[in-house]
């Protein structure tokens, strides 16, 4: 392969000149081949992602026998019947249950997590480090380790199959990451503002809510996205904690649980369009939220891993 060695000055001059001067020799054809090659591979994987999702959504517009007959059959009934049936089968309720739980669990997670993180990040006191590591260590253990006693703990509190029980458990299990992330965030905030507020006679509590919390907004958004997705998609905890306890105890399934429930049910009732419509209904809000906030979501989720 020929290699063109350019002097640094030359290279920056070209860049300054703008445009794309032909890089002489092998460099260019090499790039072109790679370009075709990479587009090819990238396109194949994109199809592998999109195809199953679109195929499933189209299944909502087929009949059960069409779905069973051939995967490549074309949808025939272009109406929303299957969606309406899925909604009646409980998808609507499952949505409502999940929203009820999350409208309490997410704000509570953010509030309690930020409070603990703030105190631990900003106020030195004996045992500070111990408490901090105590909180953060929880992130390393698999949830299965706690599952059996957790079930009986919630049972003893008489909170099995209740919203408040699941809300408290969600908040507790979101603590390690929230505290960890907000702790590092509060540490980066300037102390000058805090001192100014103290001089103005503001109380600690007031400083937290009116000065520090608003300043921590970018951090709150990242960790908030993380928690919303994590709790929305949680399956193991509700599948253990949210089972009806007696015959008269109503179902309070979360959406994830409900979809699996629907899968069993539709297998027996041979109404797969309903199942596919249910899954599509569960996917659409995620798609809308994702497309509107994809930059923040990608940044929020990956920053959680990088730290």
């Amino acid at each position: 392969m020929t290699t063109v060695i350019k002097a640094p000055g030359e290279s920056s001059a070209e860049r300054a000149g703008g445009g794309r001067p032909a890089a002489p020799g092998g460099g260019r054809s090499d790039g072109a081949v790679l370009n075709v090659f990479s587009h090819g591979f990238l396109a194949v994987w994109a199809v592998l992602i999109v195809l199953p999702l679109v195929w499933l959504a189209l299944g909502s517009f087929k009949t059960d026998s069409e779905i069973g007959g051939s995967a490549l059959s074309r949808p025939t009934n272009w109406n929303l019947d299957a969606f309406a049936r899925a909604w009646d089968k409980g998808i609507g309720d499952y949505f409502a249950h999940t929203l009820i739980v999350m409208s309490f669990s997410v704000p509570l997670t953010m509030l309690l997590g930020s409070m603990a993180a703030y105190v631990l990040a900003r106020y030195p006191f004996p045992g500070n480090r111990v408490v901090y590591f105590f909180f953060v260590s929880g992130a390393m253990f698999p949830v299965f380790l706690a599952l059996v006693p957790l079930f009986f703990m919630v049972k003893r509190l008489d909170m099995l199959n209740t919203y408040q029980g699941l809300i408290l458990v969600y908040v507790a299990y979101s603590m390690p990451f929230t505290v960890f992330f907000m702790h590092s965030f509060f540490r980066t905030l300037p102390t000058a503002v805090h001192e100014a507020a103290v001089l103005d006679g503001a109380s600690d509590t007031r400083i937290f809510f009116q000065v520090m919390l608003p300043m921590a907004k970018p951090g709150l958004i990242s960790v908030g996205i993380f928690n919303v997705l994590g709790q929305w998609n949680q399956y193991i905890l509700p599948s253990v904690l949210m089972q009806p306890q007696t015959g008269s105890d109503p179902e309070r399934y979360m959406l994830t649980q409900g979809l699996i429930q629907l899968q069993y049910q539709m297998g027996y009732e041979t109404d797969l369009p309903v199942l596919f419509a249910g899954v599509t209904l569960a996917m659409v809000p995620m798609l809308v939220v994702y497309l509107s906030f994809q930059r923040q979501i990608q940044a929020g989720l990956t920053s959680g891993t990088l730290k």
Partner: protein
Amino acid sequence: MSHVARGRGRAGFIAGFLVLPLALYLTFVIWPYIQTFGYSFTNWSGQSPTFDFVGWENYAALMEDGVFRGALWHNLLLLVFVPATTILLALFFAFMVNAGGRSGAGGVRGVRGSSFYKIVYFFPQVLSLAILAVLFGAVYRSDEGGLLNGLLIRLGLVDAGRPVEWLNDPDLVLWCLLLVVVWHGVGFYLVLFSAAMQSVPKDVYEAALLDGAGRAQTFFRVTLPLLWDSVQTSAVYLGIAAMDMFVLVSTMTSGQFGGGPDHHSEVMATVLMRNFLYFGKSGYACAMGVVMLVLTMALSVVVLRATRRDRIEF
């Protein structure tokens, strides 16, 4: 305000802010974790309030339990192949997205539409595992109605009379599950690696180019070493995911809490749940939880040690 009062007020403030988060965390996270260790030495059924201390009996029984040992083996297989496949694919795509474009004078650049690819690839990450379970349950259907069989039959690769029994085939089921995890994860790690690649200053690449390095060389000698931290973290995260697998196995495969056919897709988490909720062997299930914890911790330590290199500052 006197110094003392201020100090007391501050202590009250600190305690006030910590008491609720700590109470919740202790009740629902820490205390159950501790109890698991205790219960793992008992024959507790979960139903009866009484139980006896049985020492290491549960752990000894675990070693003899063929189903659990099989599950452990499957977890170990996944532990190797989930991170390896996902990271390799993600690195490959990240390289393509960020450096696969036509080279201009400024050196190597990303392909056109790179942000489009990132958006599409990342999307599975926001879907719940329950959705994936239903989706791939349908894709892997064992007749022509399954997407995979349908396509393969249309292409003439599979005989319509004998479609592939993906999830019911003892030799295929684990690999089918593996592919779901990879499908789910590649986009996430692509974005992660892309961010890391873009944080490498341009001059580093320019310097490599000036020294006459080709693209492959640039990738292996420059990009990869600079990404090493992210690759390491990813290996730990994917490894932890491979130790879990509960949702996919329990919902996609046959049997009570999955694991079928005939325990060929069994993982530790499904054995644990079956013993806990179906066989009523809570003490035994707790012992499994402890084994899972020990293995997860060991995994993190091993990965972080084995892949340790000198950190490169830039």
